[in-house]
């Protein structure tokens, strides 16, 4: 019997995540909330199981998935070629294209190209970092890239003034800008290649039916408008996402 059957028999689906990743997963006044929480609540209903959350710092999440500490990972993570070699992603749940967050008071930056020669913060070993470096190469003057262990440190450093902008996926920085209205601002349009966020599972045969079932549930929610409503709730906007990503842009 495979993973899905075991999960149904036990009645709980264990999902690993990191809770410092607003608006997907975060702690709001002590409660674990976010798009992931709402989406998995619906997935749970579709599969007929309860959801059990395991929160870890991001460094620990994927090793723990491989160690079998939980059945899949919410996250989500940007779907990339390299990652698809090691993991299986679900249907996309949001756009992940990289854009710029800057201080609202900073009038010198109006478009991504204005970053040439400036200091910009980004997370260490992320797909956003790769995108920013690629973008930097196209500019007349290189961007001074600062790498942080977490994006939250990058925001703190922008507030402290060491970097003028932070490059991150659109949904995330849109949420930051909304939370610190008047302090931070998103610079449109996004400069990165179009990319998407998906949940993560393992590639082994045992788990294939589980991810298939989650995919089916997500596509069903997209069809009946529940997905759009939740995106609206957490991002203030909704995204057009394909049913599956076979060939990511990078």
């Amino acid at each position, binding site marked *: 019997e495979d993973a899905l059957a075991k999960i149904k028999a036990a009645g709980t689906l264990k999902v690993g995540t990191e809770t410092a990743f607003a608006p997907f997963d975060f702690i709001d006044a002590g409660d674990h909330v976010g798009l992931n929480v709402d989406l998995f609540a619906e997935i749970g209903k579709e599969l007929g199981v309860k959801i059990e959350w395991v929160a870890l710092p*991001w*460094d620990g999440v*994927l*090793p723990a998935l*491989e*160690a079998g500490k939980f059945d899949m990972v919410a996250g989500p993570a940007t779907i990339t070629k390299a*990652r698809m070699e*090691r*993991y299986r992603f679900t249907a996309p749940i949001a756009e992940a294209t990289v854009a710029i967050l800057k201080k609202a008071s900073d009038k010198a930056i109006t478009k991504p190209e204005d970053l040439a020669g400036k200091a910009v913060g980004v997370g*260490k*070993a992320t797909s956003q970092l790769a995108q920013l470096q690629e973008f930097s190469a196209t500019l007349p003057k290189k961007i001074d890239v*600062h*790498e*942080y*262990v*977490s994006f939250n*440190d990058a925001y*703190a*450093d922008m*507030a*402290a*003034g*060491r970097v003028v902008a932070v490059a991150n996926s659109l949904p995330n920085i849109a949420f930051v800008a909304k939370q610190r209205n008047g302090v931070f601002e998103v610079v449109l349009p996004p400069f990165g290649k179009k990319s998407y966020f998906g949940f993560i599972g393992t590639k082994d045969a045992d788990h294939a039916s589980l991810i298939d079932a989650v995919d089916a549930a997500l596509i069903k929610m997209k069809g009946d408008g529940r997905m759009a409503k939740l995106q609206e709730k957490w991002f203030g906007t909704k995204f057009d996402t394909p049913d599956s990503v076979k060939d990511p842009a990078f």
Partner: protein
Amino acid sequence: MMFDPKVILDHLPEIASGALTTLWIWIVGMVLGIFVGFLVATGRRYGGRFLDIPLGLVVEVLRGTPFLIQIFLVYYGGPYVGVSLDPIPCGLIGLTVYSAAYYSEIFRAGYGSVPHGHVEAAECLGLTRFQTIRRILLPEMALIVLPPCVNLAIILLKESAVLSIITVPELTATVSAIGSAQYAFLEAIFVLAVIYWVIVEATAWAARKTEARLSRLRFSAP
């Protein structure tokens, strides 16, 4: 999970540079910390109440809070009060101040371990306070403070990993970044374990040698 040594070999130069960064920040921060710590202990001993009480308070605050939080507040909070430091200087200052708090306590105990009579003998012979510290107190406490100093050095080495949150490219951050970029977590953990272990054992070995030499030099036949 599979163990793939290729990941390590491919990134040897980055790993080595991370290790070197950790090593030099650790050594410089520690040496400065020992120096400042000694000054603090001396100030507290001879400076009267007006130096002893405030310094004691600062030492206790530094020892009572995690290094992570201190370094975060200094680096990200500093600019709000007009102190904007670059990562490496900030990391060095942080490590120096944090270790100075601990080292000052070690030296305070060191001062206490020298029999008061030895100081009185110096006083009777007319040595000034500075001469007494330099010629009598320091050499006499050297052997006693060496083991705790080494212990602290080892703790500091591991604490220095915290500097990654202020973007210092030290060993732990470098290796775990390689781990997550390549999804090679097992390999990363392994590399970290081995490198730190080697540095710690080398330090402990050097300390044992120094201790043996010190005690041979000072208290045995010429």
